[in-house]
């Protein structure tokens, strides 16, 4: 019970500080919007294979803006030695990981709402004709990206070129999620359910399980000094 309370406070303090200082969300949403704009504008002339391209672009936009945000949630902790204070808090590193994971999940979810909305409006692709399916893909993709991003984000708290390095290092680990999520998104757009869709979905589930577990286990090793 105590764990849950501590977890709640760790999540809450991040959300409250974000609400007051607005350090992460505006920059992330700005980048997401801009990237979505550019991508959709370029899509105008494309006739064939639109769904395939849109599937990929949506996730690329989410990935780039999302990685920026995940880096910032950790970089934020550097001010006034918040990070050291957080690690002195009597919880195991696994709980810190889960708290950061939750915050990043919520952040990325907001980004997804914006990016998906923009793509629906600007690219004329029926992304939301099967809202439930799209929601499932978005959720699983979010969990996959967040688990990787949060795990490696802890590494680069104080490094100045951290966000570049983070994008660099997460890419090989996040590439399977990006591919699976894009492919699943394409199938949603093309309105193809069936075994292929389920296969990509189950891949996303397995990936998420692996990396959330890895995060709970390895986070301690990554953040100790």
């Amino acid at each position, binding site marked *: 019970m105590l764990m849950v309370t501590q977890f709640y406070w760790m999540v809450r303090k991040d959300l409250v500080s974000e609400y007051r200082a607005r350090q992460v969300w505006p920059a992330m949403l700005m980048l997401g919007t801009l990237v979505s704009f550019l991508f959709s504008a370029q899509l105008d002339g494309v006739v064939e294979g639109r769904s395939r391209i849109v599937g990929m672009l949506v996730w690329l936009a989410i990935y780039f803006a999302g990685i920026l945000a995940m880096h910032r949630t950790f970089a934020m902790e550097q001010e006034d030695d918040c990070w050291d204070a957080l690690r002195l808090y009597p919880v195991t590193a696994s709980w810190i990981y889960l708290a950061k994971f939750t915050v990043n999940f919520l952040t990325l979810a907001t980004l997804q709402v914006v990016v998906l909305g923009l793509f629906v409006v600007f690219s004329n692709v029926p992304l939301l004709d099967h809202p439930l399916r799209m929601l499932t893909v978005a959720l699983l993709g979010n969990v996959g990206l967040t688990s990787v991003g949060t795990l490696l984000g802890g590494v680069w708290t104080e490094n100045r070129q951290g966000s570049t*390095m983070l994008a660099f*290092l997460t890419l090989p680990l996040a*590439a399977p999620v990006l591919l699976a999520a894009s492919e699943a998104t394409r199938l949603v757009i093309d309105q193809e359910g069936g075994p292929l869709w389920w296969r990509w979905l189950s891949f996303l589930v397995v990936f998420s399980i692996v990396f959330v577990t890895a995060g709970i286990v390895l986070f301690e*090793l990554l953040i*100790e000094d």
Partner: protein
Amino acid sequence: MQRSDLKIVSARWLTWLVTGLLVAALGMAMRVAPMEQSMGQVQRILYIHVSVAWLGLMGFAVMGVCAMLYLLHRNMAWNRWSQAANEVGWLCSSLTLFTGSIWAHAAWGTWWTWDPRLTTSLLLWALYSSCLILRGSIQESHRSARITSSLALLGLIDLPLVIMATRWFRGIHPTSPEMEPVMHFTLLLNVIGFTLFFSLLFLRRLRQLQTDNLLRKLELEALVNHPYPPLSAAGG
């Protein structure tokens, strides 16, 4: 493993043995082994491709196991093992992709296709590269070792996927085709020769890293005992 145990690296006879083996393997691969019927001369890439592919996988396994040992014992010696394996393994992994791509162009008619074996191998290469970059970009040694080891450990998941990709999933990459006895022997010779050669490179690199570590300690010690470096002598 201490420095003295690595004397074998500098043993002349071993160097000559490996050189001889490699020359024999090269000769067998380029001349003695028969030309393949449907693919022609290009099939001779098989001998180096399979050798370095196997060593790329081996390298990652060594790196992963050493990374785990480092994390358990926090002994920098294991990190040096893992770093040497990382460098040599990355080289082998890159060469696998390169030779494979050329062979694929001749045999399949494309430089690259998203076959399961190819995709997972590319991922393995990306993981190798990430670890390599990570090692160079963090100054503090234990921090760098800890983070790289964690990533190497995570990457270990990809290893069984690469190995089993042709058996578990349907793809265009052949599993282990039957071949003429001469070809088989040539392949075996090549694999053994390359394994010895790259192991030697690995041990050389390992020894360099150990020497570097030792020198660093001695330099620090010398700096403490002789606080004035030769600079002042030059000035006087």
